[in-house]
């Protein structure tokens, strides 16, 4: 078990723990809101990294797991009076089931075809949910105020949702590291490097890829429930926002795909930048800069792909060999 002595794991874990504790120590609700968004981004990026960074499959429509999980959770809370933990588990389970079903079919596709298929799945899910009456059709599901009473009122419920996100994010770090340092993880990275060679060496690639896809889908499914529980309502347009998927991709690429710390730093950096842009008063001509948030993330992605495809952590590890002992 000497992999747990690696400083790369502890650096990452402590960063996330410090971020998570900041609002709890200060008991400041506005810091909590900022951190909720950041931790959500971190755990989404860390999850997506399992299929994207470790296995080498670009899942463009990964938000489908977030959206579908969120929808099922809200449905369970609203119609079945389920408790939040149960709804969260339900969200994770439906995401895992969808990934399992998709794994068997679309993971046969490689490269750009797989990426396109995942976009198609996300759009199909949105259209389906928008026409699915039990999920409220196009208007979605709105939680009744009384739901929060069981959790000590809305204010307290927000804290509970936050604690849950902190817990899930810490779990995501441990889980991701566990995969990375396991035999299963070695198989995934072999698939990323050369799938045909991996098969010849005895890796049962269909099973490994499907499992990786399921692992990368579970936590987004759970996070969706927490996010929409906090929001109080869910609509098709909110749940399956494709650009949320793309932003998660940018975060991973920014920090370094296939590393443990990369998606964490990438998500943190991207969300800070986004926050700055959204609240800035700077204008370009007559247009406010905040309208350009997605333009900037697009340009950022382009720059990364062109100049530092390994991302920040990947670049550091390659450039300075001693850092490999410190950064995971």
């Amino acid at each position, binding site marked *: 078990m000497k992999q747990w002595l690696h400083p790369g794991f502890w650096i990452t874990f402590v960063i996330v723990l410090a971020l998570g504790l900041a609002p709890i120590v200060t008991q400041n609700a506005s810091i909590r809101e900022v951190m909720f968004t950041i931790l959500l981004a971190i755990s989404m990026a860390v999850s997506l990294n399992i299929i994207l960074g470790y296995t080498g499959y670009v899942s463009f429509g990964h938000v489908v797991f977030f959206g579908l999980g969120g929808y099922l959770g809200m449905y369970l809370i609203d119609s079945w009076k389920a408790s939040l933990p149960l709804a969260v588990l339900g969200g994770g389970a439906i995401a895992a089931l969808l990934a399992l079903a998709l794994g068997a079919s679309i993971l046969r596709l490689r490269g750009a075809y797989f990426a396109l298929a995942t976009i198609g799945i996300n759009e199909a899910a949105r259209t389906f949910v928008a026409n699915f009456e039990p999920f409220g059709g196009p208007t979605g599901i709105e939680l009744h105020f009384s739901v929060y009473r069981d959790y000590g009122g809305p204010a307290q419920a927000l804290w509970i949702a936050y604690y849950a996100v902190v817990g899930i994010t810490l779990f995501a770090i441990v889980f991701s590291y566990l995969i990375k340092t396991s035999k299963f993880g070695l198989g995934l990275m*072999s698939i990323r490097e050369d799938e045909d060679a991996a098969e010849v060496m005895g890796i049962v690639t269909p099973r490994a890829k499907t499992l990786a896809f399921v692992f990368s889908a579970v936590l987004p499914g759970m996070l969706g429930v927490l996010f929409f529980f906090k929001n109080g309502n869910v609509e098709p347009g909110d749940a399956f926002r494709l650009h949320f998927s793309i932003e998660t991709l940018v975060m991973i690429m920014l920090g370094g795909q296939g590393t443990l710390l990369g998606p964490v730093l990438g998500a943190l950096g991207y969300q800070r930048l986004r926050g700055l842009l959204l609240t800035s008063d700077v204008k370009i001509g007559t247009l406010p800069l905040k309208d350009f948030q997605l333009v900037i993330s697009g340009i950022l992605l382009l720059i990364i792909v062109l100049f530092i495809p390994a991302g920040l952590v990947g670049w550091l590890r390659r450039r300075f060999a001693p850092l490999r002992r410190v950064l995971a």
Partner: protein
Amino acid sequence: MSVLLQVHEVTKRFGGLQALTQVSFDLPEGQILGLIGPNGAGKTTLFNTINGVYKPDGGRITFRGQDVTGKKPYYLAKMGMARTHQIVRPLNDLTVRENVMVGACFGHENRPLHEARAIADEVLAFVGLDARADQLAGSLNIAQKKRLEMARALAARPHLLLLDEVLAGLNPAEIDGMVQTILKIRDQGVTILMIEHVMKAIMNVSDRIIVLDYGQLIAEGTPQEIASNQRVIEAYLGDPRMAEQLMEEQV
């Protein structure tokens, strides 16, 4: 001696191209079988068909007494078949040691990670790559990458090893080193099927040789028989005197 691999009337087509036509041969346990033939004769296609990369259009392949026709490569790997690639396929972003660990982890013996590490170090020392264990595989030169291919295959502790032109592109000293390695592997009880263009080497190490030409098996026999076979000389060796020379050069 029991037959480890049996190839029976195997046929493979790619569209209009007849790549393999009813190829049949037996490979007894413990032997080195050489596979030679002109470029495009279907040698690598035969390898790909044996280890499941391609499904044959006809015929039957039996490995360790079991019909494995059309089985996936990972199935055959788990049964104890390992191979190297003519065009090396290192897992570039993994270290040399990790590359070899993949063979031990997922191949025939299905070892856990910590045991695979020990096997990898042992095999890397055997092929002379131990000094490079912590380097990224992508940073090796071509001769080292060929050794890595070999190490990865050996780490699986296979019953049958398919070697696809492991000597190509090596200088004479490197060839000698590799030939010694191949003989040592055979002495450990591993059966070997090898494709090779370096005639001197294949004539030296093979117990028997089969010859492919235009997807057909045109000859089978000991190295001496092959070197004096008229059809082989016409199709592949060219000059009859060269064949004689090859035999004289044998140690």
